[in-house]
């Protein structure tokens, strides 16, 4: 069992991750030399008698300063390059892992984790981890080194100066980290309020009609104003904390300046040293602020890491078995459910103790009301879910023993959800069989009655499909899905209410076309007329099988079935 966690992909880059901060340190050393050079100039100018000045004594330190500036810049850009490279590569690897995990987890696991949260992992969390790695490589060495370097350099200039710099920096650090410790909770609160505002806005737009029809505009506006006030309050709570940061660090640093000047006035410190120490203050403060940014971005990255970990560490509940080849024999049982139940975690089970079978060549119908468990039955057969109780057999063996692809490859599913991909009609209907010939395509289009509208497009089957297939009507989408299933050339066809948006005439025509194709057929429908010619019909009600039989038998024996049929044909 391979265990990948959020930071796993970073291992590949460990050399670069270690190397980058070393380059940074070189730049820091360059920078720390600058105040010392300035001190030299000042000392020279204040100590030497003005008649014997030598201007080379001034030019030399200044030229060294310039050289240090360029050298520091050049070397530090190597770090910046490495950091940008590694963080982008790392984010790539991480997203790849996430996508792989999405494909491996079961729907149930993804639903339990939350679909919107999964998307957040792919964009926000990966991004904050990318930023975290980037900042880590760029600043981890720089900030502490500059901070400590300033203190050490000041100590070298004068122990007293060193003590002041140390004291001021400790106090400033305390302020910075206090503010930082107080903010994350407030940020989270603001985000939650903003999410709430977004939800209310979404509802106001999608519910424009009902809100007006129920005369709830004023009520909704009141609700919104409360939400926007709450948001305002939460942002002010954050601002009140953040507003302390600038003035307090400013005050502390300048307190240090006053102390240094005071000592200089008492002749405990030279003027050149004073100027150098004031410079170190400014440098160290910048480093400190940078360091606090690093910590913020690392703590964000850490929160993301935890979320990513919790997703990547999920073990897929639907694991592929070992049997690679599933041989379907003529006339033999393909699917068998023995006493199978399925719960989604609610009070009542969606399927309760179902016995069911499907033989090669059979045509089976399943009928029942909303929430009777029809779609849950299909979920068991496709193994989107595992039965919470009982057994699901495929060709006589537990379905869990098969490689997922091995038996799914035998089933062409037309699901209730019209799942189309952005692309063209061609790319969508050829998903499962990219090599289909033009004749096959045309036959499938005609059998699914998609031909009549597809042929009207100028580009024919190269007509564009928008995201989610929003440029097609419900009936058109269903016909395309049907066409896709027929083109897949798989021996078992499962139709999950696949023609509900077609009018009755088209529905009939589609059924006749399918019947000619000699497939093993499982048809789930709300329409009794659609399934009445099936070899066997299962009548489901509230998750239980209440009757099994042929149309005529059920009409006689099953009250529920009779009711459904009669309301539909409306003959009494």
């Amino acid at each position, binding site marked *: 069992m391979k265990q990948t966690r959020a930071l796993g992909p970073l291992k590949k880059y460990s050399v670069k991750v270690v190397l980058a901060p070393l380059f940074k340190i070189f730049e820091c050393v360059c920078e720390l030399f600058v105040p010392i050079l300035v001190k030299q100039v000042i000392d020279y100018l204040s100590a030497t008698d003005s008649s014997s000045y030598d201007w080379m004594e001034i030019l030399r330190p200044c*030229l060294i300063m310039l050289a240090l500036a360029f050298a520091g*810049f050049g070397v530090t850009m190597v770090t910046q390059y490495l950091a940008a490279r590694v963080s982008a590569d790392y984010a790539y690897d991480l997203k790849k892992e996430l996508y792989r995990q999405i494909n491996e987890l079961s729907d149930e696991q993804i639903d339990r984790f939350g679909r919107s949260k999964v998307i957040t992992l792919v964009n926000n969390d990966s991004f904050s981890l990318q930023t975290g790695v980037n900042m880590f490589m760029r600043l981890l060495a720089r900030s502490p080194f500059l901070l400590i370097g300033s203190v050490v350099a000041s100590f070298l200039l004068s122990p007293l100066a060193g003590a002041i710099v140390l004291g001021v920096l400790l106090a400033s650090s305390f302020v910075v980290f206090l503010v930082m410790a107080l903010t994350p909770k407030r940020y989270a609160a603001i985000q939650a309020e903003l999410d709430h505002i977004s939800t209310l*806005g*979404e509802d106001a737009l999608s519910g424009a009609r009902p809100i007006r029809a129920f005369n709830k505009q004023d009520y909704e506006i009141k609700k919104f104003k409360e939400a926007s006030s709450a948001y*305002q309050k939460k942002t002010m709570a954050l601002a009140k904390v953040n*507003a302390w940061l600038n003035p307090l660090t400013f005050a502390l640093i300048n307190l240090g300046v006053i102390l240094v000047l005071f000592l200089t006035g008492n002749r405990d410190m030279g*003027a050149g040293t004073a100027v150098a120490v004031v410079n170190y203050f400014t440098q160290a403060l910048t480093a400190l602020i940078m360091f606090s940014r690093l910590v913020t971005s690392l703590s964000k990255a850490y929160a993301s890491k935890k979320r990513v970990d919790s997703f990547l560490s999920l073990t897929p509940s639907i694991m592929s078995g070992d049997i690679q080849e599933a041989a379907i024999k003529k006339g033999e049982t393909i699917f068998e459910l023995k006493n199978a139940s399925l719960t989604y975690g609610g009070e009542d089970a969606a399927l309760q103790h179902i016995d069911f079978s499907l033989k090669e060549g059979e045509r089976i119908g399943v009928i029942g009301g909303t929430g009777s468990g029809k779609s849950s039955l299909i979920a068991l057969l496709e193994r989107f879910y595992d039965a919470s109780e009982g057994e699901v057999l495929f060709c006589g063996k537990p379905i869990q023993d098969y490689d997922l692809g091995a038996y*799914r490859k035998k089933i062409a599913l037309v699901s209730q959800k019209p799942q189309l991909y*952005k692309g063209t009609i061609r790319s969508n209907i050829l998903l499962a069989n990219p090599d289909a010939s033009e004749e096959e395509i045309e036959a499938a289009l005609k059998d699914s009655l998609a031909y009549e509208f597809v042929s009207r497009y100028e580009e024919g089957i190269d007509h564009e499909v928008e*995201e989610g297939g929003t440029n097609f009507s419900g009936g058109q989408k269903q016909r395309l899905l049907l066409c896709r299933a027929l083109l897949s050339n798989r021996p078992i066809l499962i139709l999950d209410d696949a023609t509900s948006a077609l009018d009755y005439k088209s529905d009939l025509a589609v059924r006749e076309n399918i019947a000619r194709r000699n497939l093993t057929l499982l048809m789930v429908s709300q329409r009794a007329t659609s399934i009445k010619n099936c070899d066997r019909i299962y009548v489901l009600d509230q998750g239980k099988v209440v009757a099994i039989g042929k149309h005529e038998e059920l009409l006689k024996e099953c009250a529920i079935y009779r009711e459904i049929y009669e309301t539909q044909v409306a003959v009494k």
Partner: protein
Amino acid sequence: MKTIQRVFHYLEGSAFLAVLSFLFAFLSVFCKMAIPFLTGLAIQKVVDAGASGVIDISLYLILIASCLVAGSLFRYLYDLLTNYLGQRIVKKMRDEVYVAINEASLSYIDTHYHGDLLLRLVNDIENVQSGLIAGAGALFEGVVQILFTLVFMFILNWIMAIATILLTPLSIVVSRFISRQNSKYYKEQNAKMGTLTAYSLESLQNLEASRAYGLEEEKSAEFDKINDSLRQSAFKANFAVSWINPATRLVNNIIYAVLAFVGGILIVFKQPQLGLGAFGVGALSSMLSYAYQYMAPFNEISSVASEVSYAVASFKRIDGVILHPRDIDEGKEKIEGGVARLKVDHITFSYDGKRTIIDDFDVDIYRGHKIAFVGPTGCGKTTIINLMLRFYDPQKGSFLVNELPTSSYPKADLRSHIGMVLQDTWLFHGTIEENIAYGKLDASHKEVVEAAKKAHADSFIRQMPGGYQTVVSNASGLSTGQKQLLCLARVMLMQPEVVVLDEATSNIDLRTELLLSKSFDELMEGKTSLVVAHRLSTIRNADHILVLKDGKIIEQGNFEQLMAKKGFFKELYDSQLA
């Protein structure tokens, strides 16, 4: 300029605070920039005193201390005030946008992308906050800081000040170059991130299809391709950003070294005739402090400048929503004693002014009538409902309630008499219980359950993990049929005077629909009802059936009469029995 006027509109009532905030910024920057100046004077005094003289710099220390106190205080007030001001304006704008959305006509809502309107309500307003409000503050602060720096520099030594000004283009060019690169690659990265997100979302929505047809590998390969292109942009964006600090330090250090040299030389070759007699070590140290901070405001300004331009664009988008004409609602009458008579009086209507949807529609409806509309898709059934509830107003003719046109009643009054279930089911983000109780906010839990039972929603609600307290939304995993049942429960609880059902059971299976018919009969007992249906069996017992085609009534009568006519209605009916 118009934009600026509009921005000032939102500052109304906050003008004093805004001026105060600028004043605080001005003062805090002044104090901040005065300290290096005073420090320089103090150091000069020490140097001038020589090795043995008496030094008294207490005056300077007191002045620095006052600057310290005043500077921190003003800075604190400034930070707090800008935030307060910004949030006040944000709230005002948000509330106005939300009110505008709720008061807009439906044609406005229908013809705008919802995602886009939502973006204005959430993100655009955030942009305005960070760009226009915080940005304006930072811009002002930056400019003031540069000005003070130059002023103090001129006071200290005009030659060095001019040298600094001559070096300024270096700061400007570098900071503009960097911020341009930055925003270019940042946008590129964002766009690619958007593509990747959309792709992941699609994959997540189509998981079932992908599993059923074994598309996992193929889709992973496609994902990797997009991911790789994002990787390239992310690298560029990261690298572009990482220039800022090193480049700033480089420019600062260059200026620093040059000024140190120029200053040193000026002290070495004293030129009293240039008015620089007093220039000494102390002044040089002040100069160098200024030089060290010189580049920072330029960076700030150039990064803020691009934010301000986004913010202006965002502001225009927000203002567009707020300034949109509101829905017209001028009725003053009151519907007395309920809706006794409802008449459709020769209505003609078109959504776009070109294609007529309803053509001279005329019908009389009395209290207690059950009226049904049938006809093929696009015949105008739903439009009639839209017109009756005044979501849209007809070009010719009108609905009459108790002899008066509906436009003479306030919309709220009219709608309070009507309960409806529309074709597009709507659930708001909230618990199932809250959703059912939407039409009757004070309903008890028992009443809600009762209504859910009547709508045959109770059993599936109890299958859900949280039962009645399960949080749902329009996008949550409920099937359309289940959502319709919840919307029906809403109306069952409301018990309205006029019931409107627009394809209210289109996604509910026949058996459940049959079970529902008893509840419907109860609900509609003695009430006026309008039903739009495509399943003809459900409207057999209507008092009057109107058959529509292309916006016109082509047949009408009760079920038997229409069947006997052997016309369009019978044709429709027979096709359902095939």
